[in-house]
């Protein structure tokens, strides 16, 4: 093989690998990206049907309820504007508490209950999962905005 052919072969190999990798990545991205939604977005029906996604917010005080099997738990995630009931079967992370932030991953059931496959752990007491913090901030901001529009309207 001449150096020229060799170079083409090398470039070809690189391109084939790159193409294969890209195809794999795109394919995997297509089916495995998990989007995040706030309880308000869930209430507005913005969430995908039959697909896994994440919700985050505050675990509502007094909403945690445990079934007799000791493993199935029900609680409500809220961004202070909307509430989403969540069902989870399994052991909750150490730092899961009412009145604290939490993020859950799963699917929305037909009755509007979020069936969580995973409840995410926080790493220390004062830390709020950023998604949960954002959900609260958004709800607050939209609340502020709507009051602002009331003020703006008379103009």
């Amino acid at each position: 093989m001449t150096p020229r052919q060799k170079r083409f072969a090398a470039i070809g190999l690189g391109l084939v690998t790159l193409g294969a990798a890209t195809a794999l990545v795109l394919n995997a991205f297509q089916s495995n990206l998990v989007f995040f939604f706030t309880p308000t977005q869930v209430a507005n029906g913005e969430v995908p049907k039959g697909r896994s996604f994440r919700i985050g917010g505050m675990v509502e005080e007094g909403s945690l309820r445990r079934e007799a099997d000791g493993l199935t738990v029900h609680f409500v995630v809220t961004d202070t504007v909307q509430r989403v009931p969540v069902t989870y079967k399994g052991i909750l992370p150490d730092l899961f508490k009412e009145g604290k932030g939490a993020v859950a991953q799963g699917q929305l059931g037909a009755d509007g209950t979020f069936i969580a496959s995973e409840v995410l752990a926080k790493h220390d007491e004062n830390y709020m999962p950023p998604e949960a913090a954002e959900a609260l901030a958004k709800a607050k901001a939209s609340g502020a905005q709507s009051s602002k529009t009331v003020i703006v309207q008379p103009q």
Partner: protein
Amino acid sequence: MIPEIGHYALILALCVAFVQGTVPVYGAAVGNPRLMALAIPAARSQFFLVLIAFGCLAYAFFMNDFSVLYVAATSNSQLPLHYRLAAIWGAHEGSLLLWTFILTMWMFAVTVFSSHLPAAMRARILGVMGLVSVGFLLFMLSVSNPFERLIPAAVEGRDLNPLLQDPGMVLHPPMLYMGYVGFSVAFAFALAALLGGNLDAAWARWSRPWTTVAWCFLTIGIALGSGWAYYELGWGGWWFWDPVENASFMPWLAGTALVHSLAVTDKRGGFKVWTVLLAIMTFSLSLLGTFLVRSGVLTSVHAFATDPKRGLFILSFLAVVIGGSLALYAWRAPRVGLGGGFAPVSRESFLLANNVMLIAATGAVLLGTLYPLFLDALDLGKISVGPPYFDSVFVPLITPVLFLMGIGPLAQWKKAEVPALAKRVRWAAGVSVATALILPLVLGEWTPLLSLGFLLASWIVSTAIVSVREQLAHMTGGGLIGRLGRLPRSYWGMLLAHGGIAIFVIGVTMVKGFETEQDVRMNVGDTAVVGGYVFRFDGVQNVKGPNYTAVRGTFHVSRAGRDLTVLYPEKRRYLAQNQVMTEAAIDSGLVRDLYVSLGEPLEDGAWSVRLYHKPFVNWIWGGCLVMAVGGVLAVSDRRYRPAWRREPQMVPAGAQLVGR
């Protein structure tokens, strides 16, 4: 007073680093031996200055000096001494000091083991490392000073995050950083070659041991981190494709490619430009990893304060290092030349394919890690890229690498014949396919992934056996043991490292295929069966640790009526931060782990409990250890010993055959 001495030492170190980064490099450019010679004393004094700073911080932790902000934030007087000292790298500022300290340690090592290098080369290498050091010292002194005072002093420290109060904390970060920072030597070698414009086989031979040692440290560091997550987080997983883990895995992948590319440059003088690019890439990924983890961009146990000034400094530093070295590469690489030619089927081409695949895998991991950050930064929504993405991308990309791992060492350099090669590996291929088809059935279940795992593992092992047999056949004289002993250590090192991969693959395959996980509610006296093992819950009792109180459960484990062991998982409450931690209890074994962790207390003394049976899980970390041992063995080979220390007797007869 002591913290001020530490602070002052850092300032002096910065000045020295600045001199080290400029004067010797200039000296090398104009050919002034006296300026070049400055590199060694500069590097050594920098090492001692940073050592003093490190010692001062350690002293502050030792004395519980809560007038130092960093100590007050990460330590506590109730904390046991070994964790107080490990708390030095328990948060952002201290871990940067550790990074810098390790960098100066590597510099010191370079000054000791580089007497055989040309003076200009050594000056440039130390110069480049000095410049990296300037960046880190500036960063520490400007925005993250570990010696900052807290006035008035705190009465008590905030304590180290309980997750970090673990023996893993003592070992994992230093090992990982030894790896990360070790690649700075390879990087400095590469830049020195670009600056000097001469890159030959001798250059590769000099930089190979450094790269391999760094790679070994990184391998061990990652394995320690994985093992730590396994028993400390209480989830029983050993790899989560968490961005923090990916941050350490990417330099490992690129470093692995570099180790192999260096082999070609060393043995055949090929891949020169590519090797240099890989060295730049590997160190850049190390830097990216350090900063991703420590900047607070990623939310995890590793991320601490989020200070926008730090983020800005980090981004500019990354831009300068990566941009600068790539610009130098673009400017000088054409002068370095491409190196020797080779046929499309040859050991070189197999190694090239291995490199391309490894880099593709690195790219896929990088994309999955950074994509959510980009989307978030551009305010396009929050997403997460979870394990399913990485699993479905990584496995297909890495499978060909493992296949090539078997065939590469058998192929001739420069040009190999496909039919001859196929003939040599036919029985290895037969054995592997048979194992892949039959072994899963014997174990009770046949799935494509199980089969693939066994295929790859037995392929790596059987081709290694073919390779050893062929080596022995080429040698004459001596008994079997004698002939085995005459094979060079670098060859054994390679086989061992590849064998480590096979062990790792077996571990992953068995865990993925046969693990049992169960969350159950257990009353006192209840039994649960997991993976054929009977767990009986005998209630809980209260215990007290040095800085925590805990509820300790008792579980009797038996199998087929025979008592095996008693496990004591704990639920700890750390007093300083009033934080609850799950401490799993694990019975480790060669072929299985039994894993119990307490969930939550339920009514009437019942608990929710997590029970795992994990077959072969220790093989995962065992494989990593074997890889690292292989690397160390390869480095100890006589061919890397500097000429003045090499014994008068030259290469033994057998060694030349291996180098084929």
